[in-house]
């Protein structure tokens, strides 16, 4: 028997969907009465492949866990491995890691500007921010050799030291971007239409947030201050001065305000790192990478990615290959089940808008 309400497939081939996934909507009018998320279009069996690679080879796979921000998975995996092995990271390595993570955060926020505004039809901000994002990617390219996938953070430190004159370039880029995001904000946050659309839409209550395991900006947008960088500081974050952006409301607007606040915090952090960058070694060198074994044990390494807590549960059985690596992406919980819950009662026009504000990223859900 056919459904009474209208079925609308939002995705996988749909301009409004974030990545390759599908939300099957049941509509009455343009109000959603039921939403079912379907993932798995991007399943590449990463965790299976890592079991077949040795510890060092896994690095190439790790960065592909989440495409918009490839560095947090590397850092989380490195943290977990270091915990099992007990390997120390030199101070400079820690700072460089934080530098890369913050730069990755900035470029990812700029991508978010594009997604959030593009789903609301304001393409100009997206064009600007994605265009300017290339300047951050240029920094990455100079530092790591890759625009998108860096494979820079290794267990024990980072892959290479910063090139000469890099600090100035970073500072210069930060100045430019700081100037530009004011422009974006003027067009986006000051727009009455954007305010009208964002306020009161896609509300997550505090209870629901805890129940569904919401993390990152959506959680801080509910007024709950949780940030791995503050709670379980890793790398150089305990030495940096920054604040969490906490806003009440739990709607798209609050989440946008959180991100607006945090991109500025990131820029300031990058500046602090460049100023306080200690001298010394950047990598606690491992023995021959091809024959590197890790003692048996398990650990959960987690970092704060752009969209929230990114964790790796790493199990080693003492061989040269991981026994099991299981990732927990920030969107894993709120990208599937919570989305189904909060989309009910919302308008069709806001689906893409809400998904962008939650930061749903399918590749890390299905891996």
């Amino acid at each position, binding site marked *: 028997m*056919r*459904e009474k*309400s*209208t079925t609308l497939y*939002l995705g*996988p081939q749909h301009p409004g969907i974030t990545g390759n996934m*599908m939300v*099957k909507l049941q*509509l009455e009018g343009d109000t959603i009465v039921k939403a079912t998320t379907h993932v798995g279009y991007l399943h590449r069996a990463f965790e299976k492949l890592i079991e077949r690679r040795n510890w060092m080879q896994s690095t190439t796979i790790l960065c592909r866990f989440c495409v918009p921000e490839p560095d947090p998975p590397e850092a989380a995996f490195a943290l977990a491995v270091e915990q099992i092995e007990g390997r120390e990271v030199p101070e400079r390595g820690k700072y460089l890691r934080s530098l890369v993570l913050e730069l990755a955060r900035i470029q990812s926020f700029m991508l978010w500007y594009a997604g959030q505004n593009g789903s609301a039809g304001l393409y100009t901000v997206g064009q600007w921010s994605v265009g300017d994002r290339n300047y951050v990617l240029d920094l990455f390219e100079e530092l790591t050799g890759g625009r998108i996938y860096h494979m820079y953070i290794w267990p024990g430190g980072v892959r290479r030291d910063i090139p000469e004159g890099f600090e100035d370039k970073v500072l210069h880029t930060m100045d430019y971007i700081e100037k530009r995001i004011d422009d974006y904000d003027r067009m986006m946050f000051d727009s009455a239409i954007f305010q009208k659309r964002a306020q009161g839409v896609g509300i997550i209550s505090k209870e629901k947030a805890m129940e569904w395991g919401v993390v990152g900006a959506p959680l801080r947008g509910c007024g709950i201050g949780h940030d791995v960088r503050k709670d379980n500081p890793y790398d150089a974050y305990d030495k940096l001065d920054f604040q969490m952006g906490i806003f009440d409301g739990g709607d798209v607007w609050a989440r946008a305000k959180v991100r607006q606040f945090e991109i500025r915090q990131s820029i300031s952090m990058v500046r602090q790192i460049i100023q306080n960058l200690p001298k010394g070694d950047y990598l606690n060198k491992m023995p021959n990478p091809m024959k590197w074994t890790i003692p048996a044990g398990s650990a959960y390494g987690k970092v704060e990615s752009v969209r929230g807590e990114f964790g790796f549960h790493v199990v080693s059985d003492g061989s040269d290959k991981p026994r099991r690596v299981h990732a927990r992406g920030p969107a894993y919980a709120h990208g599937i089940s919570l989305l189904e819950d909060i989309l009910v009662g919302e308008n069709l026009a806001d689906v893409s808008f809400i998904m962008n504000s939650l930061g749903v990223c399918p590749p890390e859900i299905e891996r």
Partner: protein
Amino acid sequence: MNSLILLLILMFGGALFAFILNKFVPALRDIFVVLLMLGVSYLFFSTGISNRLNFDVLGIHMQWGFTSASYLFGIIVVVLGSLALIYSTAYMKGKDRLGYFYMNFLFSIGAMLGILMSRDLISLFFFWEIMTWSSYFIVIYSGNDVDRRGLKYMIFSAIGAYSMLMAIVIVNSFIGSFLLEDVFASIFAIGSGYQIAIAILLMIGFGVKSAMMPLHVWAPRAYSESPMSYTAVFSGALSKMGVFGFALVLFNLVSTQNWLINEVVAWLAAITSVLATFYAVIQSDAKKLLAYSSIAQIGYIIIGLASNTYLGVMAGLFLAVLHAVFKSTLFMAVGAVERQVGTTDMTKISGLIRRMPWTFVATLISIIALAGLPPLGGFVGKWMLYEALITSGHYYLVIMVFLSSTAAFLYSYRILFGMFLGQEEPEFAHVKEAPLSMLIPMLILSGISVLSGSHPGFILEPIQSAMASFGFQSNLPHESWWELTVLFNTWGDKVALVNVLTSIVGVFLIALAFITIKGYKNQRYVTTKDISSSGEIIQPEDNMTFQIDFYKPFERAIWPLLKRKIDDYYTDFGKGLEALFDFVRRFYNGNGQFYAIYVMAFLALLLIAGTKYFGF
């Protein structure tokens, strides 16, 4: 024998005979009613308007005969009645109690003819009641009086009838005659307060039948619950009796000093049309949608009449004729769908276009006419209405009309999409086209809609003669109806309908030829299951047609207006009334002396009031 009497005897006698015939020879019933109606039509057209019949009953002088105005409405009744009966033979096939149905059907047509031919208030009222009762019997035909829809209709009709009766009594007390001629001649001699009271009372009576807000609440259910073949007449012709009455009142009983009445009526009609359109937009049942749409359309007609300008009245009468044409086509089409599919709920049906193409064509043409798009007849009426209102300075009224007719696009599309477009589901694969006897009336009426778009003369000519009887002199220069294709407003602006038609049809044909011939070989038809559903494969349980709450955003925007239906006020009123009766019941304590006192007091009250106001 006078042909007027013959007409009525044929109608009413034939109705009774149809009932008897159905008992004994049901096979001949259909042929009989159709032949009877065709015969009556012939008689009607041969009667003409000069025939007058005078007689006395119980010392009251009565007069029958058609005027040019009532003849116009008579044409609607007769043509629509014949077509609806032809349609009915197929539509009602297999239903029970058909004798009852046809008897009441013919009774109501006869009563309508009676109303139109009566030249005195008593016979008008008499036929009016026959019409009410016979239509009431058909409303409750399809079963028990569920939801009291028939009762609601009856209560409002009774209210209307009583106010009419009161008006008739008042008129008689002043003028001493029931003849319309006498009444029209001497109405302006009596006080203007009484004039207004008479006009208002009569308009309440007529307003009920034409379903004017706030007297419309019976209409949606009554229209949608009666068999569609009758609703075509109900909405097309029967409601026009109310319009006819309005025309009588507005042009003959209201003096030009009382322009406020015209204004009030026009504004009421405008509000009627806007609100009814909004209600129609949010309906999901095709019959109810059309019912609300009828209410809205009659709003336009009355606005036109109440505008009291030449063009406006012409627009009103033109729209009255055209509304009868396209709305009955639509009801017939919906009836055809109902008969072939089993439901008219637009959330259930979809994609009938390939199954019922001719019904679709008839619906499409009627919908274009209804929406008032060029080059069909609806546009002509709308154009005249707008121009009349603009040139006569009804600035805000024209905005209301425009709001209503723009919002009418929404439900026009809704009904086409809901029934004929959208996904073609396998469960409707067995549906066949309606039988020929249903299609032919629809297509004939659609043809009228098409023809009236470019050459409205054949409707405008009888309208002009009718308007002459209301005192509006013709100012459209033309030689024959074929040449009346250019319309003017009083400022001299015009629309040339033939040019419009040529341009639209010419461009349409050229573009159609181009798009068909270009790459004809590689043009493919695919089913509606092969759509770009974001790359996903449609599952059998998916309902890919957008059906429920079609205009949800619009509904949200107009929500403040619709929050409370007028129906609810009546329900509250009804509850209040019950409480009142509860209170009253305490007086009826079973003691006979008390009753005697009540009756005495009431009579005394009536006497005082009567001498004071009515001068008995």
